[in-house]
């Protein structure tokens, strides 16, 4: 991958350069975050001309490595004001890698009101006016169908939905998956950044592209085999996720008393059986038709944690029906009917709005009296307002923090204005530390992977106690930043966490592809360096340690059934990033 492409939307000019030397060894999040830190003014307005948005495949994307087709998208976030890396499946990343494109950047903004489609193929990059039929409220499913018809069924597509066109802070970027359905770079409002640059869609056609070159094909093949085995032999990644999806967590978190309910006023619900992964599986199986219990979000996915959820007649409603969405609407907003939640999920995908942020915003709107508690039909109608957008739609589409302020709530579950997802920080304290300190705002995926000795980190953890939690959160954030840079799905961690051979195989694949000799220590250092760069950007944007705090209500509102409160002191929280002032080391 040696091409670094920039599209300037002020001039509509395209430049293709060699990859700058300083980015040569970087991919995915490591590349997007370093680029944003280098070229985006930290104090700029995220929707102004000085923000830039970058798309980058991971180090292993485009190869035959299992689960390596994730794409990183980076910019300054209009939701949080921090640096942001948002990550997605689909086919975009692999096509970029095969075409030798290390990064694709959109900068500047047009002075007129036209929306554009950027087309990338082996002949170069063109900027065309967007077809009118995909603008002004056209849903993403239809927009992807129209663009595929125009540019070819096999093209990759990234699109800003109606929420992105209207520059709402929760807007995501929706990506076409292998079957023409939708995957999302969900969090942080990067769809609004795309909309601010008047880019409706990016279309990528890899026809004529060569295969990604591998420095040592035999070594790569051997490592890839070990890696695939580590994933498939594991009960989580080989069996659990494929059968029940991420929604397997509903019953587990509910039992642990860590399933936030009714706008974070409790940690357990009674209707968990209605919305559990087990019920999801049974419902899809029973209904048949278009339903699929297991499905991959990108070619080469062997875990297949996604699914197609059908209606009572077997007709497709939605896919990628994730735990956090089902939790947000089902537990936090108290909607007890899984079909109602599925229709909300489809609508959010079609509008192009982050389903975590919006689900938590809906729950806050229920507490604020804008929507009746637990009313799935009313929630769907409120979400539909975002498409138009009416004033209510704009409020909900602006995220939980705005809904909380609009409704005069003190119980507004956000960190750096990003909604706290599906794990109550009072009952699962280690994840609370990650919410508080992540460079991205409250983000469960910021703390997903440990690259070091998991037993050393995890043996003494008690979810309600402080012991070991600082080390846990730190190690998780460092490991995640590293894996996010490989282009690997974070869920590979489930398969390699307990298996040193599996983790080494991941590193061996990178070494074989590039002809280098990284060690696991190097990968740890890469993770640390990414976090340091992100923290430095946030500091320059005006963030301090005082922003690394959970909302105050967690300190004095006990969470039943364990009745735990958030009791980390500011000094303890700041320990998570104690390493940031250590001297930088090579990576």
């Amino acid at each position, binding site marked *: 991958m040696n091409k670094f492409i920039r599209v300037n939307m002020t001039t509509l000019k395209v430049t293709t350069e060699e990859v700058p030397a300083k980015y040569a060894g970087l991919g995915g999040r490591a590349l997007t975050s370093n680029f944003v830190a280098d070229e985006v003014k930290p104090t700029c307005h995220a929707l102004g001309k000085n923000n830039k948005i970058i798309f980058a495949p991971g180090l292993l994307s485009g190869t035959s490595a299992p689960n390596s087709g994730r794409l990183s998208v980076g910019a300054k976030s209009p939701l949080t004001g921090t640096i942001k890396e948002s990550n997605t499946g689909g086919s975009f990343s692999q096509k970029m890698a095969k075409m030798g494109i290390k990064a694709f950047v959109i900068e500047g903004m047009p002075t007129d009101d036209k929306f554009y489609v950027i087309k990338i193929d082996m002949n170069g990059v063109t900027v065309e006016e967007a077809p009118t039929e995909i603008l002004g409220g056209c849903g993403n499913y239809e927009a992807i169908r129209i663009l595929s018809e125009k540019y070819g069924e096999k093209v990759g597509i990234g699109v800003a939905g109606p929420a992105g066109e209207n520059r709402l802070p929760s807007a995501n970027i929706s990506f076409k998956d292998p079957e023409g359905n939708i995957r999302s770079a969900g969090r942080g409002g990067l769809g609004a950044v795309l909309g601010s640059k008047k880019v409706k869609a990016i279309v990528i056609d890899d026809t004529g592209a060569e295969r990604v070159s591998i420095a040592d094909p035999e070594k790569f093949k051997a490592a890839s085999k070990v890696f695939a085995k580590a994933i498939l032999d594991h009960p989580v990644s080989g069996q*659990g996720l494929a059968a029940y999806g991420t929604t397997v967590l509903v019953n587990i978190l509910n039992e*642990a008393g860590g399933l936030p309910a009714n706008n974070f006023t409790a940690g357990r619900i009674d209707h968990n059986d209605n919305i559990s*992964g087990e019920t999801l599986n049974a419902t899809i199986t029973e209904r048949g038709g278009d339903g699929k219990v297991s499905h991959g979000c990108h070619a080469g996915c062997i875990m297949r944690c996604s699914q197609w959820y059908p209606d009572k007649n077997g007709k497709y409603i939605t896919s990628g029906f994730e735990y956090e969405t089902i939790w947000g609407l089902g537990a936090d907003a108290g909607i007890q009917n899984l079909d109602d939640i599925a229709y909300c999920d489809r609508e959010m995908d079609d509008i192009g709005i982050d389903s975590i942020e919006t689900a938590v915003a809906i729950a806050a709107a229920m507490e604020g009296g804008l929507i009746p508690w637990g009313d799935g039909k009313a929630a769907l109608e409120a979400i539909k307002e975002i498409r138009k957008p009416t004033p209510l739609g704009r409020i909900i589409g602006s995220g939980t923090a705005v809904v909380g302020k609009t409704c005069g709530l003190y119980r507004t579950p956000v960190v750096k204005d990003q909604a706290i997802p599906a794990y109550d920080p009072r009952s699962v304290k280690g994840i609370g530390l990650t919410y508080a300190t992540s460079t991205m705002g409250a983000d469960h995926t910021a703390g*997903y992977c440990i690259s070091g000795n998991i037993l050393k980190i995890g043996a003494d953890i008690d979810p309600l106690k402080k012991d070991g939690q600082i080390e*846990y959160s730190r190690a998780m954030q460092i490991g995640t930043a590293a894996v996010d840079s490989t282009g690997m799905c974070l869920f590979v961690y489930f398969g390699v966490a*307990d298996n040193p051979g599996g983790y080494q195989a991941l590193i061996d694949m990178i070494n074989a592809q590039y002809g280098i000799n990284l060690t696991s220590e190097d990968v740890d250092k890469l993770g640390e360096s990414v976090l340091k760069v992100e923290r430095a950007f946030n500091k320059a944007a005006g963030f301090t340690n005082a922003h690394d705090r959970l909302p105050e209500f967690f300190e004095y509102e006990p969470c039943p*059934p364990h009745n735990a409160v958030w009791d980390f002191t500011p000094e303890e929280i700041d320990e998570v990033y104690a390493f940031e002032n250590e001297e930088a080391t090579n990576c």
Partner: protein
Amino acid sequence: MVDKDKKTIEVRGFLQLDAHLKKKYGSMPVIMELKEPIRGTELAEKMEVPWDEVEVIFVNGFVQALDYIIHPGDRVAFLPPGCPGPYRIAMGFYGKNQGNPASFKIKERQ
């Protein structure tokens, strides 16, 4: 809250054990009579839940090893291997499952 005067326990099963217990007992949760304390392993046997399908058990919302003592009034759940990684650490599985052959120990470590 645990009711010490109760002579029953409330039992749930997750992942594949959800369907297993629903089929065997007709509903979820299963209300079992229990007059004296019992080990998790014994309860599993009594309910025909294979040990190798249980990584940890929940007792009153806390993760425990499979041989943990269950008392009348407790709320119990059997959890097979299948809970995604970071949450297994965050909820304390690693302090409880190391003696259990159904934990995620990889062959090299066994």
